[in-house]
């Protein structure tokens, strides 16, 4: 398979759709070949190889949409798949905002493909996995790797439409992850997780070593956890917790589909201050070599780097083509059509970034204060209202400058209020799985309940 073959597959599908009665059609296709080593219970357990071509065909008939996706990339079934999509469009009600974007100039993002990754075979993937296991065991034998994996994947994506969009991109990805916990006698600490991701093969051993070190630190920190303290006061969210608690709800509230459906408390606040003034948030689809980067989105629209919040002021919502048309008022797609070739375009971010602050992470809590450090957040967040309540994982109670691990501690509040209660950001930032680059965040006046 190569990019040209994949684009030809898309063109064949849209041509068949047009002949079958579609007014407009868009086909997206992807091919992936991967080798992956799975770890189980501290050992190399299975080596897997896979290869698959998947496509998604979207047709518009009289303003109604039909969509079919399949992994049977064989020309003899294309006619049947096209007929299914058209039949579905004929049943679905018409929607005046349905449409496909016009072509735009798409510039490649550098560093997404590395030919060395394509050369990684079963034996090398297994060897890297063994290196990771040994790295963790050498750092601390109390840490158990329950599961994990090391994979090397080569992929291609192509998209063509009857409006003239014709784009394709090749990418590679190395991924190593470990999931497990520290066990010391009867003391079982919380599950934890870390991973290393890269578009490049070179230097990946070093990235695995760093991930092992973070993983072991997080797992062992929870040993000896005891009851916490109930109070209302400051908490510090680690970069992992920022990515778990703050970002998904904030991004959900900025997605134009939620705005249109009345599910965002930020709907009427464009251009207003919705967070503490020290908060600058970006969405970036064009980080060179970034694992969330791509030259174009799910509809072939070029990606961009875009400010979401500047000085706490809401700068923009996120749009795909449909949502921009539904919004009207001159709105255009922000290049945020999300999803795989096997799904209809939704709305979503690329890599989210929060600008760093000026305080060292270790100084976010003063010696005289009582606060909780939230290593990870495991809980429920109502995406519509922003209400959250969840358990602090890998958590510490900080009192008079002393940190001690705690368990059964809950934090409760509202994400949109928490954004206003942010009082400091660390000057260090951490990459969270390639999807976010964020500092630790201190927020005031949060309800903390200890069991």
């Amino acid at each position, binding site marked *: 398979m190569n990019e040209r073959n994949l684009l030809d597959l898309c063109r064949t599908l849209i041509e068949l759709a047009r002949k079958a009665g579609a007014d407009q059609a868009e086909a997206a296709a992807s091919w992936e070949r991967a080798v992956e080593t799975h770890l189980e219970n*501290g050992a190399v*357990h299975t*080596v897997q*190889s896979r290869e*698959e071509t998947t496509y998604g065909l979207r047709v518009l008939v009289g303003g109604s949409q039909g969509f079919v996706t399949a992994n049977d990339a064989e020309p003899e079934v294309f006619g049947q798949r096209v007929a299914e999509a058209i039949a579905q469009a004929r049943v679905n009600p018409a929607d005046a905002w349905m449409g496909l974007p016009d072509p735009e100039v798409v510039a490649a993002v550098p560093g997404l493909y590395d030919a060395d990754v394509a050369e990684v075979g079963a034996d090398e993937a297994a060897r890297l996995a063994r290196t990771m296991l040994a790295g963790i065991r050498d750092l601390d034998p109390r840490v158990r790797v329950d599961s994990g994996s090391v994979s090397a994947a080569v992929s291609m994506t192509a998209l063509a439409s009857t409006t003239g969009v014709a784009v394709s991109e090749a990418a590679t990805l190395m991924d190593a992850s470990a999931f497990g916990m520290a066990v010391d006698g009867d003391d079982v*600490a*919380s599950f934890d997780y870390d991973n290393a991701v890269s578009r490049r093969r070179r230097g990946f051993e070093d990235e695995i070593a760093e991930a092992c070190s973070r993983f072991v630190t997080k797992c062992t920190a929870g040993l000896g956890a005891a009851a916490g303290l109930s109070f209302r006061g400051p908490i510090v969210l680690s970069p992992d917790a920022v990515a778990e608690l703050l970002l998904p709800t904030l991004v959900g509230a900025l997605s134009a589909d939620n705005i249109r459906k009345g599910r965002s408390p930020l709907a009427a606040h464009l251009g207003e201050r919705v967070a503490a003034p020290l908060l600058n948030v970006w969405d970036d689809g064009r980080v060179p070599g970034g694992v969330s980067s791509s030259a174009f989105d799910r509809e072939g629209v070029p990606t961009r780097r875009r400010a979401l919040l500047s000085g706490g002021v809401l700068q923009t919502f996120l749009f795909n083509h449909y949502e921009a048309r539904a919004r009207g008022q001159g709105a255009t797609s922000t290049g945020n059509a999300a999803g795989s070739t096997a799904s209809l375009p939704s709305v979503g971010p690329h890599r989210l970034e929060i600008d760093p602050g000026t305080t060292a992470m270790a100084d976010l809590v003063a010696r005289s204060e009582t606060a909780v450090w939230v290593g990870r957040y495991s*809980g429920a967040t109502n995406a519509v209202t922003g209400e959250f*309540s969840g358990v602090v994982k890998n958590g510490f109670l900080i009192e008079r400058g002393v940190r001690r691990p705690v368990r059964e501690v809950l934090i*409760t509040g509202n994400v949109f209020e928490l954004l206003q209660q942010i009082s400091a950001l660390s000057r260090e930032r951490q990459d969270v799985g390639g999807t976010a680059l964020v500092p630790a965040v201190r927020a005031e006046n949060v309800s903390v309940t200890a069991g």
Partner: protein
Amino acid sequence: MIEALELLCEIAAQQDGFVEFRYHAKTSRSLGVDKGKVERSQIRHRKGVGVRVLTAGGWGFASTGQVDAASIKRAVQMARTAAAACASHAHSSTPGAGHQPLSSLPACTLARGIFDQPGLEEVATRSLEEKIGMATSLEAQIRGASRVIRSASCTYNEIFEDKAIVTTDGAAAAFRLVRPELRMQAVAEKDGELSTGSEAVGATGGWDCLFRSAAGEALAERAAKTAQDLLGARHAEGGRCAVILAPSIVGLLVHEAIGHTVEADFVQAGSVAAGKIGSRVASDLVTLCDSGGSEHYLGAGGTIPVDDEGVPASRTTIIKDGILVSYLHNRESAARFGVAPTGNARAWEYSDQPLIRMRNTYLEPGSRDLDEIIADTRDGYLLDGPRNGQADASGEFMFGVQEARRIRNGKLGELVRGVTISGIAFEVMQTVDAVSRDFRWDLGAGYCGKGQPAKVDAGGPYVRCRALLGGEE
């Protein structure tokens, strides 16, 4: 399906050593209605064959989306290469840690035959127009329920599955099943304050199974009422207290906080259930099971007749009268523990390898009336409708709760909002002091995540225990 079974049997007969073949074809249809508009209507087809090989202690797995003899044989070769690579690294990777590789799988009972599940014909013959009509009318019903309802949504999904599982040591089974699901949400608003109410049902079988507990209209009414009632509701007071858990919360608790800790791969990694077989882990009112069948009544969402290693998916008692009696196994872990496999090996799609997963997990009902349990509770909460949940190797869990109703002096009082419940599962199960005679499957729309999704269900009776409630300090 029969053709796939025959093809796999033919290829299996030509192989040396242990090889497992799994043909898996999935067709799903989904559609959503949002604020009166039909959105996200789509059809998805995915099929292929996954091949697993065990060679000298190493597992190799390969998959192909092409279901023909040449492609499947190529996948066998790729799986053999992968198994050889795995074997050479598996042996040297575990000095003093983990377990030693297994060179072969002991013989066990394996399924042979066709095991189709009910409902296929009925769901397939209902037209797309009818399904759109149902979702459109339920969504309109929610929006029309009250002036405070700002928006509503209703999503309908159905997944048809065809499977054939063949192993070189004797499994040769095939089945088809269908799983319909319906979800709805109401969003209410008053004076800038938002609240939501959600309902979801899912089943293995036809629409009679899907709507067994409540008709679509009743679910829509409940979603709207919850959103409306939660407007203006106060937050709960945080702290440890008596709680009566509805079957939906009991289901989530036994799945997330106990079920995962007794999956044998987690046990081997050192979960809190390790070494506890024969020990008391719950009050003697607690009997917990996991079954591939739909116990008590038909239609549970995680039903499978045979697991993805070809083992019959029978019922496993995990806790009997408060004593831990079994873990959940695949063939490999069963061999390591010296027990029979429990039929818990499951793969999400053809390109996924089978992992130890739950199916339908439930607490057996007791003998008390719910009304009597409420009347007998001086101070506490009745909790229903899980928002989501997570649990840990330590058994520490946390779930969001949609509806929390105050109980004072044996009487149900006002609704409170933003509630979460947490605790250490085995500690909470020790505090169970009342179990009702009701039974309901109530997690059929749920998916469990463990690297890959799995369709599961869970449920049970109403249960009173003590747990930590998250609220406002």
